[in-house]
């Protein structure tokens, strides 16, 4: 199944912000063309940092290492800032949780969108605006001509996120990295935005790396899923396989925590995971989840085996 090279192939990514603590401890991700790969985990597990590390957008002072990091077969680990900038916004684009912080309040929607194309493709401003109007219509915005002339603060949250998506699509990217794109939105709007992402994927053959904490979102949109905990991918599998047959105790615990209408009677407690995420300092060995795990055994403090069921379902655990 690894015949065709993945669009994004990251192996053994490590990120540290301060000398003592590693935020990301060996993350591997493969995003195939035209597919959605979800990275799911709770706050502080390192899912957003992983995305930023791939984009080369980490804060100054952060150190990034990886066995390899390839985009369309090309090494992007050693790229200069200049070459990375050419890649970002062009062949790989990113959208964030709060669109207001990533749109410039001082410029109209149209001029910001056109600017992306003018910068990467050296077209005229008018061509940029035409493309912007076309994309706003594509992301389901009525009266795109009017929206082009508006400022970000004049748009509602749902519209802003649509504008962000349209802006990310300006240069026909092959990879879209979406960091919690629907978390700040209302539930009905969330469903609309997710549908939009799925439709765009089918139409444009877009690969999507979607970062989220919401297992419901993952279940409905992902082809592949990586579950992160304390800076590691503890389980990765196809979405159908992961939800039908979760192997890692953390994944199972997480699934038990989510209330699903009609499955748990009122008055009965939801499943929950005791304890809190540990601080992983240097020299930490064994399983990061062992202190919260009901199946923990002495071996968990020494090492964690990486298991693979042969069909691409991998997880880090002693349990068979």
């Amino acid at each position, binding site marked *: 199944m690894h015949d065709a090279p993945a669009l994004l192939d990251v192996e053994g990514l490590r990120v540290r912000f301060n000398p003592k603590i590693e935020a990301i401890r060996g993350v591997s991700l493969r995003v195939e063309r035209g597919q959605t790969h979800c990275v799911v985990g709770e*706050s502080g597990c390192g899912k957003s940092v992983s995305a930023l590390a791939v984009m080369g957008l980490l804060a100054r002072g952060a150190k990034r290492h990886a066995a390899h990091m390839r985009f369309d077969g090309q090494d992007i680990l050693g790229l200069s800032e200049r070459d990375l900038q050419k890649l970002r916004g062009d062949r790989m684009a990113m959208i964030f949780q709060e669109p207001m912080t990533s749109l410039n309040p001082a410029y109209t929607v149209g001029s910001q969108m056109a600017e992306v194309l003018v910068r990467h493709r050296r077209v005229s401003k008018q061509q940029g605006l035409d493309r912007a109007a076309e994309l706003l219509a594509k992301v389901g915005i009525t009266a795109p001509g009017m929206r082009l002339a508006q400022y970000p603060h004049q748009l509602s949250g749902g519209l802003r996120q649509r504008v962000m998506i349209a802006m990310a699509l300006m240069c026909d990217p092959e990879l879209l990295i979406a960091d919690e794109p629907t978390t700040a939105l*209302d539930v009905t709007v969330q*469903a609309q935005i997710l*549908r939009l992402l799925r439709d765009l994927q089918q139409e444009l053959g877009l690969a999507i790396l979607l970062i989220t904490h919401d297992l419901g979102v993952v*279940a*409905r949109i992902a082809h592949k899923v990586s579950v992160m905990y304390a800076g590691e991918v503890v389980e990765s599998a196809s979405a159908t396989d992961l*939800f039908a047959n979760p192997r890692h105790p953390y994944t199972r615990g997480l699934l038990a925590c*989510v209330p699903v209408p009609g499955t748990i009677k009122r008055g009965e407690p*939801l499943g*929950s995971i005791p304890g809190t995420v540990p601080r992983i300092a240097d020299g930490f060995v064994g399983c990061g989840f062992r202190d919260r795990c009901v199946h923990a055994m002495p071996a968990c403090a020494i090492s964690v085996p990486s298991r693979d069921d042969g069909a691409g379902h991998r997880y880090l655990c002693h349990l068979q």
Partner: protein
Amino acid sequence: MSIAIEVRNATRAFRQSTGVFSTDRTIRAVDGVSFAVETGSCLGIVGESGCGKSTLARLILGLLPVSSGEILVEGQRLADMNRRERARLIQPVFQDPFSSLNPRRRIRDIVAMPLQAQGIAARDQASRVEEMLIRVGLPGSIADRLPAQLSGGQRQRVAIARALVLRPRIVVCDEPTSALDVSVQAQILNLLDELRRDLGLTYIFISHNLAVVEHISDRVAVMYLGRMVEQASTDDLFAAPSHPYTKALLASVLTPEPGLGIPDVGLGDLYPDPANVPPGCRFHPRCPVAEARCAIEVPLPRDLNSHQIECLLAG
């Protein structure tokens, strides 16, 4: 069953200035809302941002006066109570455990604050604070810490302890788990549910998350642009939603079940704006089944198969 809290036709209007030369607009964040909650039960209030659910919470807590209508707590008018009486009956738990605790005060003082406001002796305060902290599952050693030293889940437990230390009758939970991680959310929900049964509390549980509301509430009310468009028992509402908006809300719940795909809620991209309420039925510009008369006629609340709904067409 006795009624713990009754809200009668409550309205809250805000004035919004739109510029130097234009006249102010009036926004009715809550516009003629009525409901009653039975003692010991939990009413879930769901709705999207701008529907007025948080304003309603503030009205019930007495943090804002109603513009018109009235709120009765155990038969007594909320407006006639002084702050101490009100505090003994109703307490809040807010969404963000990072802004709901004063960062400069120790946990002990934060939880003791309602006791102090009642003028209870310092000796009694200490023992009740300690008891309450244990009750919400916190170690006593936490009492001398500052909020910044606690995790989000621990902070929310502190907020719950503060709300319950006076043994109120009613707790207004305004999105109490929305800022928390999934695993912590489950812990807090379980704690709230357990406390309600053990202490005989009445909850008003406000959330945008229908799955959470379904899990914890006995009855659910759906708000849209300041009105309650549908009320029913939780089972009835989830089994047979009647209002088109409730249907859309239920359809957009994403449960972790792969293969179901992403639902088409069919609401279009006209988002509701509380400053610009449409005439007729407020929901008609987004409603997938709206007819011409929906833009003119205002739907009045009516009963339909044990649901109370505001829709001209349903039924």
